[in-house]
C-alpha cells in the first residue's frame, strides 16, 4: 500500500491543553458567578481562571504553531482549519444576530405596543398612559434616568473610517505576503493592529461621554441594546486586534510563506467579520 506520510492526515498525540481549557473555563465562569452573587472568593477565582485560560491558549496555540512550522500540516489539514474558522465565524454572526434581533423586536414591536398600537391599546391606557416616546427610549418607567440618541457624529463616523481603513491595510498585508514582500506585509499588519486599538480607544471615549451625560447600560431598552451591541462588538475588535498582534509578532519572526499563511488569513477573516458587524451597528444603532 502507498502509505507514505504524505497521504496521511495528521492526527496529533494526546494533549493536556483541552483538559486545562475545561478547568479554566469552569473556574472563570464559576468565579464570575460567585462574584455576581457577591461571594468573597468569586473575584479572585475569576482571575485565576482567566490566567489559566491565557496559559491554555499560549500552550495550545504554541503547539499548533510549532506543528505548523515543522511542516506537519499539508493542504489537507489546512482545509480543516479553514472550515473550522469559517463556521466559527458563522456562529459568531448568529450570536450578534440575537442582539440585533432584540433591537429590531424592541423597535418594531415592544415599544409601539406599549404605546398602544395594535392589540396593546389597553396596556397604554391603563398602565402607561403618559408614555409617548418612540425611539430612543428608556421605557415608560424612565429607567436609568436621562436618555438621548447616541449621534453618529463625530466619533462613530470617525470609527467607521478607521475600521474601513484597517480593512484596507489588512488586505494590503495579504497581497504583500502572497508576493513575499515581507516589509510591506509587516507594515500592513502593524497598521491594522494600531487602527484596531485606536478604534477601541475612541469607543472607550464615547462610552465615557455617554456615562457622563447619564446614558448608561441601565437606561432602559435603548441603553441595553446600545451598550450590549457595541460592547460585544468592541470586545470582538479587541480580540481581533490581539489575534492580529500575535500574527504580527509571528510575521516578524519570519513565519508565513506566500503559499502557507492560514493563521494570517483566519485573523483577516475575523477582522472583516468585526468590520461588517460594525457597519450593521453604524446603520441600525447610530443612524436609524
Amino acid at each position: 500500500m502507498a502509505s507514505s506520510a504524505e497521504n496521511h492526515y495528521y492526527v496529533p498525540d494526546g494533549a493536556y491543553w483541552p483538559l486545562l481549557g475545561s478547568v479554566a473555563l469552569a473556574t472563570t465562569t464559576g468565579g464570575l458567578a460567585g462574584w455576581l452573587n457577591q461571594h468573597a472568593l468569586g473575584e479572585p477565582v475569576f482571575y485565576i481562571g482567566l490566567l489559566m485560560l491565557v496559559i491554555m491558549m499560549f500552550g495550545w496555540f504554541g503547539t499548533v504553531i510549532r506543528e505548523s512550522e515543522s511542516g506537519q500540516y499539508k493542504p489537507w489539514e489546512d482545509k480543516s482549519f479553514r472550515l473550522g474558522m469559517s463556521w466559527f465565524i458563522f456562529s459568531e454572526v448568529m450570536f450578534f444576530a440575537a442582539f440585533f434581533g432584540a433591537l429590531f423586536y424592541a423597535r418594531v414591536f415592544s415599544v409601539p405596543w406599549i404605546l398602544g398600537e395594535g392589540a396593546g391599546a389597553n396596556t397604554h391606557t391603563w398602565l402607561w398612559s403618559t408614555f409617548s416616546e418612540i425611539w430612543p427610549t428608556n421605557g415608560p418607567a424612565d429607567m436609568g434616568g436621562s436618555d438621548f440618541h447616541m449621534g453618529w457624529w463625530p466619533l462613530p463616523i470617525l470609527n467607521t473610517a478607521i475600521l474601513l481603513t484597517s480593512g484596507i491595510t489588512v488586505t494590503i498585508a495579504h497581497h504583500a505576503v502572497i508576493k513575499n514582500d515581507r516589509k510591506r506585509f509587516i507594515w500592513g499588519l502593524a497598521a491594522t493592529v494600531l487602527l484596531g486599538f485606536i478604534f477601541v480607544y475612541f469607543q472607550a471615549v464615547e462610552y465615557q461621554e455617554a456615562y457622563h451625560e447619564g446614558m448608561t447600560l441601565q437606561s432602559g431598552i435603548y441603553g441595553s441594546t446600545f451598550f450590549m451591541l457595541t460592547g460585544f462588538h468592541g470586545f470582538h475588535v479587541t480580540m481581533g486586534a490581539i489575534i492580529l498582534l500575535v500574527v504580527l509578532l509571528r510575521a516578524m519572526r519570519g513565519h508565513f510563506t506566500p503559499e502557507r499563511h492560514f493563521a494570517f488569513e483566519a485573523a483577516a477573516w475575523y477582522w472583516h467579520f468585526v468590520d461588517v458587524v460594525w457597519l450593521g451597528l453604524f446603520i441600525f444603532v447610530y443612524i436609524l
Partner: protein
Amino acid sequence: MNAALTDTDHHDDHHHGPAPGLLRWVTTTNHKDIGTLYLWFSLIMFFIGGFMALIIRAELFQPGLQVVDPHFFNQMTTMHALIMIFGVVMPAFVGLANWMVPIMIGAPDMALPRMNNWSFWILPFGFSMMLSTLFMDGGGPAGGWTLYPPLSLQGGNGFPFLIFSIHILGISSIMGAINIVATIMNLRAPGMTFMKMPLFVWTWFITAYLLIAVMPVLAGAVTMLLTDKFFGTAFFSAAGGGDPVMFQHIFWFFGHPEVYILILPSFGIVSEIIPTFSRKKLFGYASMVYATSSIALLSFIVWAHHMFTVGMPLSGELFFMFATMLIAVPTGVKVFNWVATMWGGAMTFETPMLFALGFVIMFTIGGFSGVMLALAPVDFQYHDTYFVVAHFHYVLVPGAIFGIVAAVYYWIPKWTGNMYDEKLGKAHFWISTIFVNLLFFPMHFVGLAGMPRRIPDYAVQFADFNAISTIGAFGFGFSQLIFVVVLVKCVKGGKKATDQVWEGAEGLEWTLSSPPPYHSFSDQPVVK
C-alpha cells in the same frame, strides 16, 4: 531536520494504539475513544435525569402533596429537561457521530482531533456546575427549562451558575458541530460523493448546521437574562421599553431547531437499520436527503407555534400555524420511505430492528399530536397541558432515545467485537415499549381534560390516569437497567462478531474488523 525526525517518531507512535492507563481517556485525540466517552457520559446522565423524572412521577402518583415540596418539584421538572436534552440526547448523538461518521465515510479520524477532546471534556464541568445549583441558596432553576423571564430571574444563588453552565454546554455543542462539518466536508474517502454518504452522516451533517446556527442564539438569550438580573438592562422588562415576550421569541428561535437537533440523527439511524434488516436498499435515498434538509430549513420559521397563547397578532398566528403544518410533508415522506423500504423485504427482527420499528410507529404518534398542536385555535385548549407533555415525550423517548438505543444495539458488535445478548435485548425492547406507552399515553387524556403541566398537585378526577403513568414510569425506568446489563456483558465478552455483523449490512463501517483497529482508515478506501 530535527523537526522532521520527531515527525517520523510521532507517526510511529500513532500506529501503535492507545496510550496506557487512565490518562488515555483524559488526553485522547482518537475519535473512537472520545465517542466512547460521550456515550458513557450520556448513559450516566440518563440515569440522573431519569431519577429526577421518577421523583416527579412519585409525587404525581396521587393527588395532594406527599413526596417533595412544590419548589423542589419545580426544580426537578426544570433540571430533568435540561439534563435529558443537553446531557443525554445531544451527547449521545455526538458520541455516535464520533464513533461512526469517520468510519462511515472512510476518514482517518475527526478533522480537528484536539478540539474534539475539548468538546467532550468541558461537558462534565458544565454539568457539575449545573447540578451544583441544586445545593445552593434558593435551589436550582425552577422556572422550567425554557427559562422564561421574569420567573427565571427570581431564582437564588444558582442563577448565574445555571447561565454559565448553559454557555459552556453551548461551546461544547458548537465545537462538536464544527468538527463534524469539517470532517464530512474534508475527510470523505475518494469516491464518497455527497449523494453516496450514508443517511446517518447526512442527517448529522444537517444537524451540525442547525447547531452552529442556533446555539449562539441561545447563548445570546441567556446572556440577556444575566444582564437583566445583574447589570440593570431592560431587555425583558416592559418598564424599560423591553418585553418579556421578546425572550420567548429569541428562545424559541433557538428552541425549535433544537428539537430537530434532537431527532434528525435518530432519523438517520433508523434509515441505516431498516434497510439492513429488510435486506433491501433504502427506498427513496435522495428524497430522504431533501426531506431532512427541508425539515431543517423550515425549523427556522416556525418557532412561535410554541407561544400561540402569548398574544401575538393574528397574522403571526396564521403564518406560524401554516409553516408548522408544512413540516408534516417532509416528515411524511420519511415515514413513507421507511415503510416502503420494508415492503416486500426479507425482514428479521433483531433488537436494533425492533427499536427502529418502535421508533417509526411511536414517533409517528408524537408527530400526529404535533400536527394537532400546530393548529393555533385548538392549541388554545392544549397549551401548557399534559397533552403537550405527552406529545414531546413521544417524539423524544420512543423517538430520539429509542433511535439512540437502536444505534447502540446495531453498532455495539462492531465497537466491541462481541455480540450482545439477543434475548436480553429483546426483553429490553418489549418491556420498555409496554411501559413507555403506559407512561405517556394516558397523558394525552389528562391533558385534553385540562390537567396543566409543571404542577405537583392536581384535581382528583385525574388520579387514575396519573397513577397509571407513574407505574409506567417506574417500569420504564427500571427496565433500563436491563440495558446496562446488556452493555456490560457485551463489553466484557460474548459470541465473537463477524466483520459484517449483520447479514444485510452495507457500508464502509462493515468492511473493518470487529472491533476496528485503533486508527481505522489511515489509508483511505476508494468508494466506487
